[in-house]
């Protein structure tokens, strides 16, 4: 069995499962946020009763992150619903806004708070829940109704997916990041190239990546239609996880007899920096091909591009320089934001580098990754052409239907912020 099949079999109480089978499984973790949490709670109460208890308080993480720093009254109401529910159920893992508990973007928060335990199952009301698969667990996005069913029962039905294997061989050059790898894959197979399949990432270049960079690969599995992204756990995974949780977990692995739907092999030393052109994540082009395209804005943030490594990469390029277009820096979590004032590049903090370069540093949240209310930090309102480290560039995704978004790595985004046109990071990286 593949790792995905092995985890599903374990959680279905079976020795084996095969692709195409439908099984009911036990859920270890349910995550919801401020957009889908309130309707999930409404459905939970409607179906199980006003006084119903959640199936496992320790298994439920509620992480507001989408519409946090806005004057929108409906958004505020959503937070109040979450707050009341967490108090009513005495939930230990509710990360409220406005206090010390606040974390920021749910997928990074799940990792930092020790929910991403190898071998477990994790479901979330957000399509990028597949991010957690970087830790060798089965994780996928669901809707409010499914989430409400889990909230009451701890169970859900799953059709066992076939697995597509993506192997990255070779040594990653310094001008490439995980974002380049996954944009290359999505460009090759298309936004429906992995529909209802697991995407398993493997190969020495994957295991050379930090666990945070691996999250970028799994985060965008959904952009190829994948049900889940997954990477087998190694020593880095175990160290990261054990440092963040005392809870038990049993890692599982792909066995030698595993059968894959298909396999693609990439030699990372041969890849170039890439972007996804407007208006789809699979609209791939080498940066060299679109270099010179005029930009209005650069945006570094989100669950896929707002991690500390993204900011270190950007800071290496922005240090001692000034941006020529509006540049937004949005750390995913409060831990990442704090690190902007402690992490240094050549003796200067990331925060100082960004501020001296003229970039605007935002508060930890999803911010403009998905548009949101009109006063959202970094949201587009007109015909802006944006280069962004986010994960989706469908029409209107960052707010305005007239704006156009190029997806890119933090290196490419930072290089482009300096020149105001799409720029290959190889042109500005100091060897």
């Amino acid at each position, binding site marked *: 069995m593949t790792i995905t099949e092995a985890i599903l079999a374990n959680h279905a109480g079976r020795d084996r499962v095969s692709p195409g089978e439908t099984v009911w499984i036990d859920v270890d973790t349910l995550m919801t946020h401020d957009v889908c949490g309130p*309707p999930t709670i409404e459905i939970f109460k409607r179906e199980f009763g006003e006084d119903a208890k959640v199936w496992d308080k320790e298994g439920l993480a509620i992480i507001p992150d989408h519409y946090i720093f806005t004057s929108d009254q*409906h958004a505020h109401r959503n937070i109040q619903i979450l707050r009341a529910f967490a108090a009513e159920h005495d939930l230990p893992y509710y990360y409220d806004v406005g206090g010390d508990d606040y974390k920021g973007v749910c997928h990074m928060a799940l990792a930092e708070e020790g929910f991403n335990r190898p071998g477990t199952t994790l479901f979330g009301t957000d*399509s990028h829940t597949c991010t957690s698969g970087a830790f060798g667990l089965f994780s996928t996005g*669901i*809707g*409010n109704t*499914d989430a409400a069913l889990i909230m009451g029962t701890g169970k859900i039905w799953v059709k066992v997916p076939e697995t597509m294997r993506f192997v990255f061989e070779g040594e990653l050059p310094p001008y490439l990041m995980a974002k380049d790898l996954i944009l290359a894959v999505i460009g090759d197979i298309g936004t*429906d190239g992995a529909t*209802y399949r697991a995407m398993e990432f493997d190969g020495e270049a994957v295991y050379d990546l930090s666990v945070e960079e691996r999250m970028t690969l799994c985060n965008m599995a959904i952009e190829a239609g994948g049900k889940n992204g997954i990477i087998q756990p190694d020593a880095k995974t175990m160290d990261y996880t054990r440092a963040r949780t005392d809870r038990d977990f049993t890692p599982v692995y792909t066995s030698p007899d595993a059968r894959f739907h298909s396999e693609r092999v990439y030699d990372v030393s041969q890849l170039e920096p890439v972007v996804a052109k407007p208006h789809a994540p699979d609209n791939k082009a080498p940066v060299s091909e679109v270099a010179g395209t005029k930009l209005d804005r650069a945006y570094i943030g989100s669950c896929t591009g707002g991690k500390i490594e993204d900011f270190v990469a950007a800071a290496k390029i922005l240090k001692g320089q000034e941006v020529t277009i509006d540049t937004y820096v949005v750390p995913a979590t409060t831990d990442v934001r704090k690190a902007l004032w402690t992490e240094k590049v050549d003796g200067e903090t990331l925060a100082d580098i960004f501020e001296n370069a003229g970039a605007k540093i935002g508060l930890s949240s999803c911010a403009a990754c998905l*548009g949101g209310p009109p006063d959202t930090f970094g949201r587009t309102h007109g015909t802006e052409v944006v280069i962004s480290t986010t994960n989706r560039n469908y029409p209107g995704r960052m707010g305005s239907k007239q704006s156009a978004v190029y997806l890119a790595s933090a290196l490419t985004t930072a290089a482009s912020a300096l020149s105001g046109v799409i720029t290959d990071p190889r042109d500005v990286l100091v060897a």
Partner: protein
Amino acid sequence: MNDLIRGKAYVLGDHVDTDQIIPAQHLVYSLTDPEERKLYGTYALSSVPPEGAGLPDGHVPFVAEGEHRSEYTVIVGGGNFGCGSSREHAPFALREAGIEAVVAESYARIFYRNSVDGGFLAPFETPETLNDKVRTGDEVELDTKAGTLTNVTTGESWALQPLGDVAGILEAGGVFEYARQQGLIPA
């Protein structure tokens, strides 16, 4: 799910994503407040680029200005319908606007699953491209038992893919009703 679904078709292209079906700024309304939930109908398919809206004619609004119900009952789409976000608001918004079924070549699976488990609409798959054979405004009839779509306006008829495993959930009216029928949760 009704055995027979009849009404006007609204035709769309490939890769209609959930941000086009219901943009993120509109995900904040209550799903239970009778007045607020109408807004999901008002803004359903409000972010489809004009060149794609109501293919093959284009520029046909799904919901008329000032309305919250669409005049259409069935969507005929292309491939990868509902790609993008896991927001259940997407099939909910289409249902709120009056859509009972979508007929598309393929679906992004979270949208497909949400349509079924929430009991919002029937997501039928078609083995051939139909969005060039049905025009927005054509009268269509979907026989959900037989699995056929008929374009009443032109007289053409096509066999659809069987619903398979999810038929039972749709017939029950959603995953909760199904789970109760199966004894998975108390009735």
